[in-house]
């Protein structure tokens, strides 16, 4: 089989020079409700297998679903935040297919009547421009259980001795958000894809509808890619790469598919409409099931549920109670902080927005907060190859550090030493300062002692100064700073030296 060898790839720049890329993205988000979509089973990460189940989520004979009102509210929040129309009435449908992780052998989903439709969201790109992504629909559905294949080589079903099913996840509420074809992104399609998923993730967190932790699979993306010779040509045949579960992978998967499809098209081939698997380790995709052979899901309206008809007044109350959304918040903060566009963009791209906001809330000036996070700390993070937020230091500690500077108790140079101590786990800035004895010497006594010693050691310089030549004062100050291990205020030392010499 040719699938074992990597297909030819056209270098990305060449591919986008010859083809126009169109993408489409389906994002599934697990809602953070206390119980499941259609029953009272409690939801929790990491429970013992098959402990978070009821007759409903196990699909036992006789069990019936009942819609979780909180899940509907969360779906409406998402719909409103994505500028969608909220359906006056919508229905659930059954998607019928046999698979052991689907306890009823059908998934209860929404088909032709989603709860939210016709929306859009503006996505900010790294250069600070925005790109509008149109949202076709957002609909509610239930998650499937989880299969574990035991005894095979790679945890895949092929070659496995047996399989285990955990139904804890079965029935967890999901909202699936489907974009319209995203056209006009050109060679920036991979970046748009990544920024879109990131925008949604931020939105879910802001809305409080999900923890939206990518690494736990709370947010999962399916990425559709197609190429066409030019933007005015009809849409090309698309592939759907399933379960791309990190921002970086979303970008890479689009890039890879562009290169792969360009190679197929260059060779005069045709793209097969299919789902593809994403291989995180290799950064490639491989064919899954061919769409034209896809099962007939025999959708029909779920007869066990009545239509969901959100009361208009309720929808308006939800709208009124929506928190400030990320884009609006960024605009507000930039205004409050007085950052230039480029500065703000760098802050956002570095993931420093929340950190700076908290630092400012802790009393630091916006300029100082930015200086710390985008300067010393950004360098530290880069060296350690970690995210800024993962550094072992809090915004409150940075605010405390800056307060010491502002109070004149340390200078910038000492502050960097205090920072080093905090990062090394030596405690809060105040504690580090005390423990390391870094406070600026403000008592004149020890300074005068040091000055006298320095003058005595260099009588010729003292003489020159006395004669009115102030040039060599620096040498005395340097000696005093050295003697006090940098903890002296240079201005004060200078004044004392002049006083002493001319006394």
């Amino acid at each position, binding site marked *: 089989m040719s699938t074992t060898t990597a297909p030819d790839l056209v270098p990305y720049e060449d591919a986008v020079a010859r083809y126009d890329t169109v993408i489409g993205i389906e994002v599934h988000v697990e809602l953070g409700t206390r119980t499941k979509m259609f029953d009272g089973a409690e939801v929790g990460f990491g429970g013992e297998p098959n402990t978070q189940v009821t007759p409903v989520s196990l699909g036992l004979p006789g069990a*019936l679903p009942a819609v979780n009102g909180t899940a509907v509210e969360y779906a409406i929040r998402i719909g409103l935040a994505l500028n969608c129309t909220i359906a006056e009435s919508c229905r659930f449908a059954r998607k019928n297919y046999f698979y052991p992780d689907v306890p009823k052998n059908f998934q209860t989903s929404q088909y032709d009547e989603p709860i939210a439709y016709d929306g859009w969201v503006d996505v900010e790109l790294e250069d600070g421009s925005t790109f509008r992504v149109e949202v076709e629909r957002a609909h509610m559905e239930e998650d499937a259980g989880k299969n574990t294949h035991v005894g095979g080589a790679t945890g895949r079903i092929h070659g496995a001795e047996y399989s285990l099913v955990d139904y804890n996840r079965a029935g967890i509420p999901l909202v699936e958000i489907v974009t319209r074809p995203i056209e006009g992104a050109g060679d920036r399609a991979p970046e748009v894809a990544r920024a879109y998923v990131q925008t949604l993730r931020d939105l879910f967190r802001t809305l409080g509808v999900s923890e939206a932790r990518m690494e736990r699979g709370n947010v999962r993306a399916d990425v559709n890619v197609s190429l066409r010779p030019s933007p005015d040509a009809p849409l090309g045949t698309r592939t759907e790469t399933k379960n791309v579960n990190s921002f970086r992978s979303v970008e890479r998967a689009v890039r890879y598919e562009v290169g792969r499809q360009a190679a197929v098209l260059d060779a005069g081939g045709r793209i097969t409409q299919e789902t593809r698997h994403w291989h995180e380790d290799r950064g490639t995709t491989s064919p899954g099931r061919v769409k034209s052979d896809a099962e007939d899901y025999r959708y029909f309206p779920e007869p066990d549920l009545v239509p969901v008809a959100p009361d208009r007044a309720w929808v308006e109350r939800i709208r009124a109670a929506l928190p400030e959304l990320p884009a609006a918040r960024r605009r507000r903060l930039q205004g409050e902080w007085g950052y230039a566009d480029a500065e703000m963009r760098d802050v956002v791209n570095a993931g420093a927005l929340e950190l700076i906001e908290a630092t400012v809330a802790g009393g630091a000036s916006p300029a100082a907060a930015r200086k710390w996070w985008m300067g010393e700390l950004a360098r530290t993070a880069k060296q350690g190859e970690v995210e800024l937020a993962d550094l072992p230091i809090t915004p409150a500690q940075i605010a405390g550090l800056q307060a010491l500077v502002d109070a004149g108790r340390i200078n910038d140079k000492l502050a960097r030493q205090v920072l080093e101590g905090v990062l090394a786990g030596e405690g809060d800035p105040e504690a580090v300062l005390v423990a390391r004895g870094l406070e600026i010497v403000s008592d004149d006594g020890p300074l005068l002692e040091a000055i006298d010693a320095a003058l005595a050691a260099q009588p010729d310089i003292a003489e020159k100064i006395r004669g009115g030549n102030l040039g060599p004062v620096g040498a005395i100050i340097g000696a005093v700073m050295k003697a006090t291990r940098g903890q002296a205020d240079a201005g004060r030392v200078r004044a004392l030296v002049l006083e002493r010499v001319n006394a």
Partner: protein
Amino acid sequence: MSAELIRRSAADLATALAAGEVSSVEVTQAHLDRIAAVEPAVHAFLHVSGESALATARDVDARRAAGETLHALAGVPIAVKDVVVTEGVPTTAGSRILEGWVPPYDATLVRRLKAARLPVLGKTNMDEFAMGSSTEHSAYGDTHNPWDLDRIPGGSGGGSAAAVAAFEAPLAIGTDTGGSIRQPAAVTGTVGSKPTYGSVSRYGLIALASSLDQAGPCTRTVLDAALLHELIGGHDPLDSTSIAEPLPDLVGAARQGLSGDLSGVRVGVVRELQGEGYQPGVLARFEESLEVLRGLGAEVVEVSCPHFGYALEAYYLILPAEASSNLAKFDGMRFGLRVEPEDGPVTAERVMAATRGRGFGDEVKRRIILGTYALSAGYYDAYYGSAQKVRTLIQRDFAAAFERADVLVSPTAPTTAFRLGEKLDDPLAMYLNDVATIPVNLAGVPGLSLPAGLSDDGLPVGFQVIAPAKADDRLYRVGAALETALESRWGGPILAQAPRLEENR
């Protein structure tokens, strides 16, 4: 003494229990004795839970002795159709695929029976997954009609109807998707009521067709049906299709009917539910009942429901479509029968196929195939979509008819009980049995069957009363009035004319 007890109505037993004339243990034991005596001939039960029934009875007697206030039906035993899930008691729905399955939970209606402390005698036989009109499609053998043991007891709830008719239980629970409570009632000379869709919770009923299924009472009197309906009915948050508003006063309506006055009640005779295909004896009893109703002061009018002629076709698309999906969960993966393929790899898909191949009977397979086809891409609009349109037209027919009449009436079934095996190889003939009951399910309105006498062949005939949705009280008022008048003509209940069953003792 016990022969006396088993022939009494649930209402009578309730009165006697409340008055302390008899204990629940005595009543329950009398029925268990009767079950032991006649079951070899009737085979109404798939499982008898004598010990737990007696335990409930002892508990009721102790509470009553302690002066506790109990539900009116407390201590009156009941049988439950095996399609209803019962915690700790085997539940098979008449299918091999659920053999040995012991549910970990109770259906809502069972919880209500237990809360009211009715001793549950056991689970009754039925056509597999309630698909059939004769109970011959049970994987566990035929049930025999107590009027003639060579004849069918109706279906799918033949077990519940036969148990009540054979005095094995004063009350039973049935379920009715296209007539499975009413047609068995008709052919066994008993009373069966299919409540308004949503009147009784479906939580814990093993679903056949979700949009049609409804549980209801199987009894020997109209008042008993009202009493049981009131007990099991009412809103249940676990069933989204359950009606939120309270039930009408059903028992009050039945008692009002017993007074025998139907002045001002407009009774509509459905033109399309008589004539060709109906036995002359069935039609004769129907006409006599209309005369009786007129005599009680009712105004009898004729109404037309032109789309009823399409009901059977629409029903046999909607039901299989929903059933094909509802029955998908029976796959050998989580509960019930599991069959591994005899050769070749043991994959999930192959286990599912082998389990379903062995576990389902022919009628179930027939309907799953029909339904899967009807829902397939490219056929959905022509089949399922069209059937739903017919359903809307039938609902409109009912709405128009109820403009002119307070209740509608028809024979319950076109014929009396046929012989076992007679229609087993002719599914269409079998389906035609439900021609008069199916429109009621498609519209979600309530319908009740009560005995209208015996046909020329000496077998019982059923009279169906239909009311608008949520007006179930009208069934009981009209039904009780007609029942009283007919029984005074007959000189007693129709079942008094049934041959006495040979007691196996």
